[in-house]
């Protein structure tokens, strides 16, 4: 019984969190019955099930000390063989990846977020 109660509280917290993202107009539409709430149970993403022996933390550390974008691309080429692995790494780095992004673009995004931003900042600040 206690577990059911706790789960119910957690469920309400999830709903409350989602409600915080609604604006006033959306809430009024719901109250008027002009809109309805939908609950979608997400199945486990296949992507999450990719078995990987890649040490993402180690690669990130290695990338962050490199001095050029070219070295970064080289490093990614060395460690990654599939788009899925790169996407997973980008996700870990909290980078926005679109479904249609090609492998080369994902690599560029990763390199820009780990090496490129420092290069451009240093050059503008004349360091």
């Amino acid at each position: 019984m206690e577990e059911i109660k706790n789960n119910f509280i957690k469920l309400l917290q999830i709903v409350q969190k989602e409600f915080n993202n609604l604006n006033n107009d959306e809430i009024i539409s719901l109250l008027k019955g002009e809109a309805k709430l939908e609950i979608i149970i997400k199945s486990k993403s296949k992507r999450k099930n990719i078995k990987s022996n890649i040490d993402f933390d180690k690669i990130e550390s290695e990338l962050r000390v490199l001095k050029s974008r070219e070295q970064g691309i080289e490093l990614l080429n060395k460690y990654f063989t599939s788009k899925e692995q790169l996407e997973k790494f980008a996700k870990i780095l909290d980078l926005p990846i679109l479904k249609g992004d090609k492998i080369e673009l994902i690599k560029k995004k990763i390199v820009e977020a780990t090496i490129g931003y420092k290069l451009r900042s240093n050059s503008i600040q004349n360091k």
Partner: protein
Amino acid sequence: MKIVSVINYKGGVGKTTLTANLGAELAFRGRKVLLIDLDPQSSLTFSFIPPDLWQKEYSESKTIKNWFDSLSDGGSITLTDLIFTPRATNDTLNGKGKLDLIASHLGLINVDLELATELGGASLKQAQKKFLKVHSHLLNGIEEINDYDIILIDCPPNFNIVTKNAIVASDNILIPAKPDYLSTLGIDYLIRSLNSLIEDYNDYAKISNKEYEEIAPEIIGVVFTMIQIHGGQPISALRPFISQTKRLGIPVFDNYFRENKTIFADAPQYGVPVVLNRYSGITYQGVVSEIEQLVSEFAKKIGI
């Protein structure tokens, strides 16, 4: 009394909205706040009074331009002469606090050109002395003002002499920025320019026989603005620019300004910043609450 310049090279980053809301909320909390509008676009001025009132009562003789103009004839106008109390905002305050303003002028853009003619000199020493004099006008002018807890200076989106005057006069620099590629580059440009100005000014001040003191305006932090939220956090396209700025060692505020055209678009029209308005919608209340948290963080950081 703390003096804080709000500045970014890049326009359209919400600089004036930040200044107006910061000042208004501090006044609401009982602080005595003076806003100085140094941007010729006069957006801060027009956030508190309508242009027609400005035209009728202030444009001729009561703007910051008049003060800069008067410097050439020995300073017949003081900054105190220009201070006024915008009515709509102050009517919403209920404590000991107040919010005053020194208005800007669309013609302020020409002041930079006039100040530039005062630079230079026959010798290096003379040029250095003129540099110090031209860049410390506002510092000297503000010295006579002492009735406030904080002065917030809304700077123009450039690094001309008027802007440099604000930096020289300031204890702290507040940088509003949008978390996107070009805006974050603007932060780097600004830091480079700030460092260069401080270095030059202090080099010359050291050899001025104590006529001028060295300056040390400190970057209090970057406030990210116009943030789109999803799932209780900035959307994924914005997050990398926020984290990269932090990784560069630039101080970044934990709180931010959310994008919400519905309430930000017309608030200046009625002379009362968003943070002082009462909204019924949950989203709008959330925006106000976030600004309040940002102001708390700001007040804590500068110790007021």
